[in-house]
């Protein structure tokens, strides 16, 4: 990262780099949403001003309370999970540690309200810093949010003035909380740039769902840029340019036009079915997490939701969602996707995501521990709530259920017993549901591959989860930097496992799909076709590209490719075989099959 302290002073161009979290190019004015680096000045007040200063603080607190109340009233249905956060904010606003302490300080030290408030916040920060429980310790961000709101009112900046913005801006922030994004007028946001975050953080998900560029993890960016300055954001590579010079602006104006053109060309064809030149068709579907993402998924040509992750409904809160909450969330997706199918995966937590509402004792190796279906089969109420909600929604549209981390037939047998109880309950309560909801299992544990022929007799479909399958089969922890480089979808052993699973499904006449990251990589698309997968599900972003590649493929040639790959000894050999195939049969699609595919869009 190029980070030069002096350049802010001379006003020269500054190039910084972060993680690309959502593709696209934005050129525009900056709006800094900055709380942490706010400058608070200390001013002494006269004795006769004390009372009016206290009143000023009280009025600001009152107004902040009204703002939060107004947000609560206008809260859209899908944001209900934020209500509890805002209600806690209401309490914190009037907390004696904030309000009484600040008033006391104004009176005793005769200082301005801003300084007193900041002092109170620092005191709370110190106290929270000693708390061992991470969840409680992180509530300090809520306190900071609340205090920032009061400070905004005191300084006359009036909260996040995004509502009043008529011109679109690039939002630059330390981090964006769900409470921040509720208030942003999303139509006026050109791009997001944040100091914190990763590809899976809240900001990244929102940006991708809105189809606007985002670059996250740009260390210190709020220190180098002011509201109103120009900025170039390249969400494809993660580059940003503050106060860009003419050359950079010209270059990125070009790149932006090319990207938009490329994207539109892709989108124009995205609704065409994905059928190969020789008539073999693949159903290309979307992996989604939020109902918010559906619009982009549909516009990208998704023929269904192949994987609805439900963890989002559970994380970031300290209670469990009710059956009705789950029903509403699933219903929204099924209704908007209708008549295309939605595949709902039951809760997959415990491996890399944990719930504060459901603490499991620390496990030395959570990936091999009490997670996903194992957790659901143990915490049976947790499982029933999901199944009841899913079955209730089944009366309103086409859905399927997908169970994660299945290792063999016994889990399926247990699941079926529970499913029967759920159905009986619903029948007894007179609640309508679809009797024939299709059931599927993730193929991601090596024993499931070995048992695929028998599993195929128990279920209606398979969905191969390559991320975990590779991790478990190759004994590689993807987040362990010492071995992460060994993680390789082209390992011949992995290719053979995929092949074996597809064959087992085909023999039983059930549908076989793939929903891992491998499915969304255009370079691997000919392998998917050659393997004979019925469905592939991926991030919305990849759908137009993958469909495009499928239309350029010949299924017969792809099958030959797979036959050759199955004879490869090493990943390297497999890669050469694939490279050879791509340059021989898909030479015009290099910009898509090249690993840095989007970057090629500039040409």
């Amino acid at each position, binding site marked *: 990262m190029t980070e030069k302290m002096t350049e802010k002073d001379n006003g020269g161009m500054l190039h910084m780099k972060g993680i690309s979290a959502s593709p696209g190019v934005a050129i525009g004015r900056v709006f800094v949403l900055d709380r942490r680096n706010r400058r608070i000045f200390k001013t002494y007040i006269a004795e006769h001003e004390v009372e009016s200063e206290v009143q000023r603080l009280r009025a600001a607190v009152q107004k902040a309370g009204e703002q939060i109340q107004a947000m609560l009233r206008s809260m859209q249905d899908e944001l209900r999970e934020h209500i509890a956060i805002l209600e806690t904010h209401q309490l914190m606003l009037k907390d004696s540690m904030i309000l009484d302490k600040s008033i006391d300080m104004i009176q005793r030290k005769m200082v301005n309200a801003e300084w007193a408030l900041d002092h109170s916040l620092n005191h709370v920060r110190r106290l929270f810093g000693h708390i061992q*429980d991470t969840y409680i310790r992180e509530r300090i961000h809520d306190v900071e949010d609340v205090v920032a709101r009061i400070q905004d009112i005191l300084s006359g900046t009036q909260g996040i003035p995004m509502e009043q913005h008529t011109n679109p801006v690039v939002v630059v922030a330390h981090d964006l909380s769900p409470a921040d994004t509720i208030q942003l007028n999303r139509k006026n946001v050109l791009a997001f740039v944040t100091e914190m975050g990763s590809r899976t953080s809240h900001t990244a998900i929102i940006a991708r769902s809105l189809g606007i560029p985002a670059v996250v993890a740009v260390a210190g960016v709020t220190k180098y840029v002011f509201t109103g300055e120009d900025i170039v954001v390249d969400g494809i590579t993660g580059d940003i340019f503050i106060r860009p010079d003419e050359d950079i602006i010209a270059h990125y104006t070009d790149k932006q036009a090319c990207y938009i053109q490329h994207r539109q060309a892709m989108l124009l064809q995205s609704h065409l079915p994905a059928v190969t030149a020789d008539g073999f068709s693949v159903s290309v579907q979307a992996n989604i997490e939020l109902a918010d993402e559906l619009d982009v998924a549909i516009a990208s040509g998704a023929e269904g939701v192949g994987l609805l992750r439900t963890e989002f409904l559970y994380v970031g809160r300290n209670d469990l969602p009710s059956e009705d909450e789950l029903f509403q969330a699933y219903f929204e997706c099924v209704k908007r996707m209708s008549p295309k199918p939605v595949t709902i995966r039951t809760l997959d937590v415990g491996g890399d995501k944990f719930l504060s509402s459901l603490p499991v004792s620390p496990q030395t190796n959570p990936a091999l521990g009490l997670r996903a279906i194992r957790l659901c089969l143990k915490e049976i109420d947790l499982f029933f709530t999901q199944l009841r909600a899913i079955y209730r929604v089944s009366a309103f549209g086409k859905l399927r259920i997908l169970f994660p981390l299945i290792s063999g037939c016994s889990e399926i047998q247990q699941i079926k017993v529970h499913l029967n109880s759920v159905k009986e309950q619903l029948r007894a309560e007179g609640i309508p549901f679809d009797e024939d909801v299709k059931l599927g299992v993730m193929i991601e544990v090596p024993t499931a591959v070995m048992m695929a022929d028998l599993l195929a007799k128990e279920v209606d479909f398979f969905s191969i989860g390559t991320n975990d399958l590779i991790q478990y089969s190759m004994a590689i922890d993807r987040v362990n930097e010492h071995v992460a480089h060994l993680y390789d979808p082209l390992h011949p052993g992995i290719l053979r496992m995929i092949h074996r699973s597809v064959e087992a499904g085909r023999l039983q006449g059930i549908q076989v799909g793939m929903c891992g990251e491998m499915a969304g990589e255009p370079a691997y698309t000919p392998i998917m076709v050659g393997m004979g997968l019925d469905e592939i599900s991926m991030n919305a972003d990849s759908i137009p590209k993958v469909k495009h590649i499928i239309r350029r493929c010949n299924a017969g040639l792809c099958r030959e490719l797979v036959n050759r790959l199955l004879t490869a000894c090493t990943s390297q050999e497999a890669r050469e075989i694939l490279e050879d195939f791509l340059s021989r049969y898909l030479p015009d699609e290099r910009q898509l099959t090249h690993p840095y595919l989007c970057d090629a869009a500039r040409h």
Partner: protein
Amino acid sequence: MSNEIHVTIENRLGLHARPAARFSQLASRFASDVWLIKDGKRVDAKSILEVLTLACPAGTRLTIAAEGPDELEALTALQVLIETGFAEYD
């Protein structure tokens, strides 16, 4: 002279954000001063922030003290809230 009761936090999450919010909200409804005491550390029970900083996981033994016109009502109400596990499914 204040009155006191001893309680044990039973709900699985302890005094997490939402239970702490309910606790301080309820305490605020009484005119009496109410304190929460853990290992000799004494905080204002009406302040959600002070209650949170006390960090009470499940199993914590606490003393609630109250002094004022409605101290007994306050203690009873808070005791019920804690003993019913905050009437929450967790």
